[in-house]
């Protein structure tokens, strides 16, 4: 398989009959089989994918294509409900759940003729930054440090989605991002991860974590592919009352890497002595590059940046505790027998949820409980207003903001800190974007001294995805990042 496969290049290959959808799908299914050790997929829809691919080839023959991308196989985070295909959210409590409806986003993929290869592993209920909280075990990062043979985390929660794209177990994938769950794993795996503005993509049919923050988006090999994929999945959906009525744009068609005269902000609050030197260097180099390409670089201030993470760890658990109240062993999912109704609830939830999910439900229940609601939950929502106004002020001065995506590159699976708060710090650069509802993208910039990818994050104002993609494309075009991991799992 060629590493240069992208949504764009595959569309051309299919169009010129250089390859059929069935051949392509078989090729990826073979890669998935050979890459089992990476543990990217919770479910592989082998038979369904091959049947769908045949149907796509049939449509191509009859010139009855659903889109230019008809017949291209993708992977789907196991958080999107897919009709007739097990949807687990990587949790024991949903391990037997087979939805009888299709999420809006995956329906849109199907409407475009994309083929689903299966459901991708993630942190349980999307809660985590390492993919280690999955009931189905951790995902391995396709990348390894040159100095060690130890396995690395792919990041999370969309760890399977990012690792699968990076390791060629699909050409592009769907993820979700509540506090960095698309951008952080993209940064750890040398892929492009786009979190759209809150409301740009429908949340209908996605297993809910924190409803005011959750947003679906693509993980791809290139910025061009991110634009293509956003075209496919975005738009208003009457089934999601928080879906925006703002008209979507033709992101790919209008992709324009010209950034002359644009103003790019560098927020001083994101600077830290703890940032690895190589990440700081990449950040500086990228700013220089944008300047060379015609943009103006401005120092800006986002004063409440450091309050974002604590506010997030009140708001997200609060919403999660409410959303996850539905898992009670009555209507779907796991049921553990109890002596009475309450005992059944407690046993089901105790056995069905993993430790991190339980921690968050308990914290969420606490901050919403009588006597603490104002001191924690309302307080955090007020901080959220302050964070949002930071960005409102900043975007009066600049078009886009450039930051690192993560405070480190991928780390060893065995080295995950045992203190949950230490783990939460992984999302320190990505969380503010969710609280403010903004679009953000992580793009690979270079590799560090251990040959591990360094990701940089761009942020624009709400619904300015086009501008975001344009700046990202400018960087991509200039640096032409083309590093790929050595496929150790094939040996």
């Amino acid at each position, binding site marked *: 398989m060629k590493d240069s496969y992208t949504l764009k290049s595959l569309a051309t290959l299919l169009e010129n009959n250089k390859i059929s959808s069935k051949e392509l799908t078989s090729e990826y299914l073979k890669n998935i089989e050979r890459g089992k050790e990476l543990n990217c997929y919770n479910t592989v829809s082998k038979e369904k994918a091959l049947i769908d691919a045949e149907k796509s080839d049939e449509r191509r023959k009859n010139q009855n294509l659903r889109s230019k991308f008809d017949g291209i196989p993708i992977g789907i985070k196991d958080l999107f409900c897919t009709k007739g295909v097990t949807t687990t959210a990587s949790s024991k409590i949903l391990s037997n759940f087979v939805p009888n*409806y299709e999420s809006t986003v995956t329906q849109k993929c199907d409407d475009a003729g994309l083929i689903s290869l299966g459901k991708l592993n993630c942190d349980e209920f999307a809660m985590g930054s390492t993919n280690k909280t999955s009931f189905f075990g951790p995902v391995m990062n396709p990348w390894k440090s040159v100095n060690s043979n130890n396995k690395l985390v792919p990041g999370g929660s969309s760890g399977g989605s990012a690792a699968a794209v990076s390791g060629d177990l699909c050409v592009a994938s769907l993820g979700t991002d509540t506090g960095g769950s698309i951008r952080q794993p993209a940064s750890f795996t040398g892929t492009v991860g786009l979190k759209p503005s809150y409301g740009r993509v429908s949340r209908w049919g996605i297993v809910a974590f924190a409803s005011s923050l959750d947003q679906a988006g693509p993980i791809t090999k290139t910025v061009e592919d991110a634009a293509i994929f956003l075209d496919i999945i975005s738009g208003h959906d009457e089934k999601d009352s928080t879906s925006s009525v703002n008209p979507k744009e033709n992101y790919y068609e209008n992709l324009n890497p010209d950034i002359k005269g644009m103003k790019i902000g560098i927020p001083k609050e994101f600077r830290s002595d703890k940032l690895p030197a190589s990440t700081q260097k990449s950040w500086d180099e990228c700013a220089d590059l944008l300047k060379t390409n015609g943009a103006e670089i401005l120092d800006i201030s986002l004063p409440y940046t450091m*309050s974002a993470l*604590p*506010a997030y760890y009140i708001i997200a658990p609060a919403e999660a505790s409410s959303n996850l109240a539905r898992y009670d062993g009555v209507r779907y999912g796991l049921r553990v027998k109890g002596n009475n109704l309450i005992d059944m609830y407690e046993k089901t939830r105790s056995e069905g949820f993993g430790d991190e999910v*339980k921690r968050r439900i*308990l914290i969420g229940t606490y901050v919403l409980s009588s006597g603490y609601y104002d001191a924690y939950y309302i307080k955090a929502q007020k901080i959220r*207003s302050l964070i*949002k106004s930071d960005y409102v002020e900043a975007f009066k001065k600049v078009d886009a903001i450039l930051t690192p995506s993560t405070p480190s590159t991928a780390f060893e699976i065995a080295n995950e800190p045992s203190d949950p708060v230490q783990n939460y710090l992984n999302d320190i650069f990505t969380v503010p974007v969710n*609280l403010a*509802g903004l679009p953000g993208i992580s793009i690979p910039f270079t590799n560090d001294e251990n040959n591990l990818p360094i990701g940089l994050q761009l942020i624009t104002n709400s619904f300015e995805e086009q501008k975001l993609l344009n700046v990202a494309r400018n960087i991509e075009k200039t640096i032409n990042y083309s590093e790929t991991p050595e496929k150790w799992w094939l040996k």
Partner: protein
Amino acid sequence: MEFDKKSLLKLGKLARISISDDKLNNLSQDLNSILEFVDQLKEIRTDQVDPTSNSLNQKLEVRDDKVENKNSTEDVLENAPEKEMNFFVVPKVIE
């Protein structure tokens, strides 16, 4: 506030999650660590600030009140762990 054994068990009751004795220590340590982390927000003055519950500045839309034939009884019951006739079955509840 610190989570001790008693307050943790009460919280477990509220969240309908039973917590076994062997997990109590670690869990209270974890939750205290998280609480200590979020407590730093207390330093910030917010008397004059309105809370934001959702970042989208959009009014909720009104849709036509049309009858739609979605979610049949069969669909709704399809994934039920235990069902009988057209009902979810739960352990007997006696008040």
